[in-house]
């Protein structure tokens, strides 16, 4: 009954996501910590599904982290955003796809503020012309890269080699989804499924054979908090929020976590390591953590990509127990190799976290 009710709520928040022809904009954090995820997104959409996803080297940061750390004025970030939109227009696109939730939220907010205050939009257009000689334009459709993977989830399922299923028991894996606050908490109608029952990752998990874990702190922030992580003396804020989530999900025994935002997988992965090393507490089975993935990594896994091509060796929580559960093959000897088989040494092993 409750589930049916939720389905109804999701149905009210179905945003329109065009099928093809997008201008692609990268994420500072995803590029820095999960570069293979962006490569995988482009490989799946362009090469496996034949979509037109265009990228130019001339785009930059949206300035979102500098802005949400309060270091630059709103007018600055809005003009940087206007420059990104203008590049889209210059290259002949009207659909804009970004790889970052902070950017996505900021784009939504900016467009809303421009709509409400046309004189501000006019000023930003003038700034843009003065500084970059670019013509002001706005996207017809604005989506996050996960919206596209959601849109293509059945096509991905049709090409899949693996399902999110425990190969020994035949049971669906228990998957925690973490959305990232700025996806839809400010503008619920801009996200698939809204803010209370976001469907963007749930749709992928269901399509790929997994089972959703509902737990009390499901919508709680990962704890990035911008300045609250960037400055060492504030970092307890970030850690304690992740800790709260893990304590809340632990009784439900999740097999894995799938994330929407580029920052969240970093925090949910690394703070598990810190909790293990400082408190001796681990949340997975047999001294392991709960492995945390980007949605691109999960799409790649079900499609049969090599886990080391997906960059899973750069996670601190080891992914092997999950790969074994699904039955995904991997070569341990190749885990830490560079390009062309160059041996790069190995990371030191944590003392507590397996």
């Amino acid at each position, binding site marked *: 009954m409750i589930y049916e009710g939720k389905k109804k709520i999701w149905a009210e928040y179905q945003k329109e996501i065009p099928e093809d022809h997008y201008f692609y904009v990268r994420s500072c954090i995803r590029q820095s910590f999960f570069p293979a995820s962006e490569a995988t997104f482009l490989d799946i959409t362009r090469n496996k599904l034949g979509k037109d996803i265009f*990228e130019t080297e001339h785009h930059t940061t949206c300035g979102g982290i500098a802005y949400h*750390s309060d270091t630059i004025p709103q007018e600055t970030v809005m003009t940087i955003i206007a420059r990104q939109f203008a590049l889209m227009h210059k290259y002949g696109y009207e659909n804009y796809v970004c790889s970052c939730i902070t950017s996505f939220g900021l784009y939504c907010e900016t467009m809303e503020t421009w709509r409400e205050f046309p004189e501000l939009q006019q000023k930003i257009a003038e700034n843009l012309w003065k500084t970059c000689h670019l013509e002001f334009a706005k996207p017809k459709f604005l989506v996050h890269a996960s919206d596209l993977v959601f849109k293509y989830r059945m096509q991905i399922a049709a090409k899949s080699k693996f399902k999110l299923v425990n190969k020994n028991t035949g049971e669906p894996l228990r998957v925690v989804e973490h959305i990232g606050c700025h996806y839809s908490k400010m503008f619920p109608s801009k996200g698939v499924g809204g803010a209370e029952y976001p469907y963007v990752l749930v749709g992928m998990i269901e399509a790929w054979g997994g089972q959703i874990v509902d737990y009390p702190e499901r919508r*709680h922030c990962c704890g990035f908090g911008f300045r609250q992580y960037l400055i060492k*003396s504030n970092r307890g804020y970030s850690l304690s929020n992740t800790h709260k989530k893990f304590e809340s999900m632990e009784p439900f025994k999740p097999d894995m976590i799938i994330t929407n935002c580029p920052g969240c997988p970093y925090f949910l992965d690394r*703070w598990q390591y810190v909790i293990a090393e400082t408190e001796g507490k681990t949340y997975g089975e047999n001294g392991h953590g709960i492995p945390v993935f980007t949605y691109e990594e999960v799409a790649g896994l079900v499609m049969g990509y090599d886990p080391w091509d997906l960059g899973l060796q750069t996670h601190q929580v080891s992914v092997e127990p999950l790969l074994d559960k699904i039955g995904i093959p991997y070569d341990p000897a190749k885990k830490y190799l560079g390009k062309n088989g160059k041996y790069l040494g190995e990371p030191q092993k944590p003392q507590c976290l397996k």
Partner: protein
Amino acid sequence: MGKLYDRLMKDYRLREGLNACINCGTCTAICPAAEFYRYDPRRIVDIVQHQDDEQIEELLKSNTIWYCGECMSCVTRCPRRNAAGLVIMALRNLAIETGLFMESEKGRQMYLLCKDLNHNVLNYGYCVYPRLFGYKEHQEAGLVWEWVHDNIDDVFDRLGANLDKDGPGAMRKIPQKDLDELKRIYDITGATERLEHVRQAGLKKAEELGLTEEEYCQKLYTECSPKHFNH
């Protein structure tokens, strides 16, 4: 109506983020910062809506306005569509403009944030630049990050990135012409001026304390009074 309140009302974030607050406290109940710090977004929204300049000035000088994580969780649940997070952003902006950010420990951290983040934006075109995200300052990034960082060119190459190279791709070198455009945007929209204002205030403080810039940065990065916390 007070002068500080008038200045706040010029901020689009306040105009968007403040409707009549009914003091229900839902924002505080949902707020991740309120659980960790001595922080109550309900109270902040209430002070601002009362337009009392004296209390607003106290806020601008306090640590309180720097506790928020700008997650915007409060926005979804507020029955009046207020955005405590946006009200905070407007207050922080005014604290910086008036120089009152220098009166609190958390406010003074702006020196470091301004310096590091905008160095990345203006020199590389990214808010985060992995070569400057060192393991020493970020041991929580894990032993795996130490390995990535020690082998950064090889690992990024292996993972299909284009670190510091021409053309598109992850962490590519962004052309100088584009970085020049970012700089011009900073110049005419007030960012350059703000960064200089924060820098000068910090350097003055360092001098007062008899610290070199490096020692001052270290102090900002690590100093933490126990009075911030909820328990």
